[in-house]
């Protein structure tokens, strides 16, 4: 009886679905077709929001030199820190060139989201960039991104309350003042493990079976976390800036991305230094940090691999790195940019470059298993700090983490 409904419904569905299917067939075979660089190209560039204005300027200069290549600079949907998920959602719709922290390169390369760089670019990066930067963007012998900045946490402090000497050692730092930090963040806290003498993924940071934290050294680091709970000079907080402003804390552990905000809060009392020394396992050792390299990678789905590669190279050249430093406090990685007077006179850059030296920091590994590591390391440190994990469980917990993150 309801022939009309059924029919109208059925045929409408058939028609609509077919138009959908037809569209798909047209668009689904858009893969990495290759055009020569002289051809016209429209590129999209993803950068973090606050960097959009000056990269627009840099991209304009690029277009002036490469008349056929148009560049659209837009913000990374959820920030470069989430490049992996943003690109992974639909690589063919993602930007041709996008900003990405180096620890995601391994997983993105394995997934096939990004192209290795050309041999010339690789050679250039190996020769002209600081050593950690070229290492940071190399995955299984190939370079996957044009590096443009280095990031490491340092200690920011109020110099009217603490002297430069005070912040050289954790003991004096925490007896003379209060340092605010976050034990629920593995990025901030795991490097104490390095200070304790353990390796996350071997000496080169890429060895899946090279973890050594399931050891006495690892337990020593956990003991250090647990001890900080009762240290009056250490404040656990998720809002360190606010504590710094209110004077509840005189120092915080933070990264260059927040330097501008901290400067606003501390004004002329702003000071920055490399991490202090800490006592782990009865030895006084340098407190270490993760070293991150920010770079621009090339989407493997791009239709203009050559043009995209040219763009990525251009926006990471010396002038561009210096602009990024001037505008957003990004610390360059190109040797001759690092040595420029602007960078040399910047205390934040000085501290980060100091932290970047071997022995002060460890490059973030790029293994895809880092996803598991971030998921599991934070609860371990947080639980140890607040006592939910008892000393008797330390060894077992470390063993479990080591096993989980070394799975293929």
């Amino acid at each position, binding site marked *: 009886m309801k022939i009309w*409904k059924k*029919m109208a419904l059925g045929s409408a569905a058939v028609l609509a679905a077919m138009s959908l299917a037809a569209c798909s067939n047209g668009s*689904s075979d858009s893969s990495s077709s290759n055009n020569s660089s002289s051809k016209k190209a429209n590129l999209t560039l993803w950068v973090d929001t606050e960097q959009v204005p000056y990269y627009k300027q840099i991209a304009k200069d690029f277009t002036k030199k490469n008349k056929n290549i148009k560049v659209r600079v837009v913000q990374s949907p959820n920030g470069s820190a989430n490049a992996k*998920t943003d690109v992974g959602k639909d690589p063919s719709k993602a930007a041709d060139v996008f900003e990405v922290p180096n620890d995601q390169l391994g997983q993105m390369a394995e997934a*096939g989201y990004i*192209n290795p760089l*050309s041999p010339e670019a690789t050679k250039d990066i190996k020769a002209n960039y600081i050593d950690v930067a070229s290492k940071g963007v190399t995955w299984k012998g190939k370079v996957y991104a044009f590096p443009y900045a280095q990031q490491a946490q340092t200690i920011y402090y109020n110099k009217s309350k603490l002297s430069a000497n005070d912040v050289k050692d954790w003991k004096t730092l925490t007896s003379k003042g209060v340092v605010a930090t976050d034990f629920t963040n593995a990025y901030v806290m795991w490097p104490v493990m390095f200070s304790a003498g353990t390796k996350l993924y071997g000496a080169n940071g890429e060895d899946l079976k090279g973890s050594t934290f399931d050891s006495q050294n690892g337990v020593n680091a956990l003991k250090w976390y647990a001890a900080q709970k009762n240290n009056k000079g250490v404040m656990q907080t998720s*809002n360190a800036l606010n504590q710094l402003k209110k004077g509840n804390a005189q120092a915080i552990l933070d990264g260059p991305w927040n330097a501008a905000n901290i400067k606003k809060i501390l004004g002329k009392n702003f000071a920055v230094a490399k991490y202090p020394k800490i006592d782990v396992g009865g030895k006084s050792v340098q407190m270490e940090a993760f070293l991150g390299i920010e770079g621009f990678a090339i989407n493997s789905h791009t239709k203009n691999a050559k043009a995209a590669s040219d763009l990525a190279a251009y926006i990471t050249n010396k002038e561009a790195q210096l602009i990024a430093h001037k505008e957003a406090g990004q610390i360059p990685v190109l040797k001759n940019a690092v040595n420029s007077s602007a960078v040399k006179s910047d205390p934040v850059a000085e501290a980060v470059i100091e932290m970047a030296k071997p022995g002060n920091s460890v490059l973030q590994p790029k293994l895809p298993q880092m996803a598991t590591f*971030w998921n599991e390391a934070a609860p371990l440190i947080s*639980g140890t700090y607040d006592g939910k994990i008892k000393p008797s469980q330390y060894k077992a917990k470390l063993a479990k983490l080591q096993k989980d993150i070394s799975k293929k």
Partner: protein
Amino acid sequence: MFLKKKHVAPKATYREVWSKGDIATKLSFFIMGSNALANKQWVKGLALLISEIVFIVWFIFSGISTLGILATLGPIKSKKVVYDAAQGVYITKQPSNSVLILLFGVLAIILCIAMIYLYIVNLRSTRHNYILKRDGEHIPTNVQELKSLLDTRLHATLMVIPLLGILFFTVLPTVFMISMAFTNYDRQHPIAFSWTGFQAFGNVLSGDLAGTFFPVLGWTLIWAVAATATTFFFGVLLAMLIESKGIKYKAFWRTVFVIIWAVPQFVSLLMMAQFLDYQGALNNILMNLHWISSPIHFIDNQASPLVARITVILVNMWIGIPVSMLVSTAIIQNLPEDQIEAAKIDGANAVQIFRSITFPQILFVMAPSLIQQFIGNINNFNVIFLLTGGAPMNSKYNGAGSTDLLVTWLYNLTFGQEQRYNASAVLGILIFIISAVVSLIAYRHTNAYKEG
């Protein structure tokens, strides 16, 4: 009367239609709509005919390959990076895009089902016309057929667009999601993946996620019961308070409570999280009042799971009570007064009246919507995601915290570090099964309640 008689008119089997029908009728078995066209039902006939032609063309040129490839989800499983010497750059040969293959495979299946359905419709229409002709009755004209769309077939007219919406934006995605659970779509196979049967179910129910799944499931159920019960019970009480005799400006009071709806939850809950922070305003106020000697960890990572869970339920009351207050208000307004009066005369006090008359009546009326609220709470994403983000962390769990519900864990598995799409699809199916079982039992129970 006449209508009824027509209804019991002798039926015809399709065999009879086939053997005794005229050429156009016979043709209808192959060319849809030919019978309708022969009977001058142009619109219907053309619609059927065009649908068939479009379908066949699509099926030959695209449908066969779409369905064929569905079996393997694409032939090329791994990418290949090659050096393009001409340009001097590396280029990646992409593997098959299994997401699209799966999506359009599901779409193609739905399309085929729709076509089969349409074919049956065509046959029925043919038979109907045949019977009318055989019995010498009037075959509806084109105009009559169209007019019936606004009368006896009004339901068809009004339902077409909503049904299409449901088909494309709910049914298709749901079927797609269900199929994903049977693949190895995860971070190791992000573009090309394959069918792996029940492997993902195994991971969740007995593999590396089982240690997280069962505790999180337990908390999800406790949460859903607690959240539903507290908001309902206190919502009723609040409604009764506002509706009680002597209270003036009832609309004003109601508005005060409802304002929190106007503020988007991503700010009200975010600010609530700051309010409850260890260094937050609430702890500061309590400290200044000397009610506590040291700050309390409510929902941060140092909080004990129990405190955090209680806090979350309390905050949910703040969000949820106004809604159930509004719902109960008019029920209370419409409650029959006589029973209450009778009870009063018998000397019952307010508490007794509430317990044995008002509350059961409200419960009776609201039972179905309570079940819906319960299911809504199982899937209550916002409160947990925005308020605690799952905190406090739990070192025993994999990718979830102590206050994470199944649905927020599902979100973490999809959009977080690990990107285990297949596992989250499994979770989606399991959440569905739980919701279905619970509501089945509950509906049974309320039905029995109604009859008793």
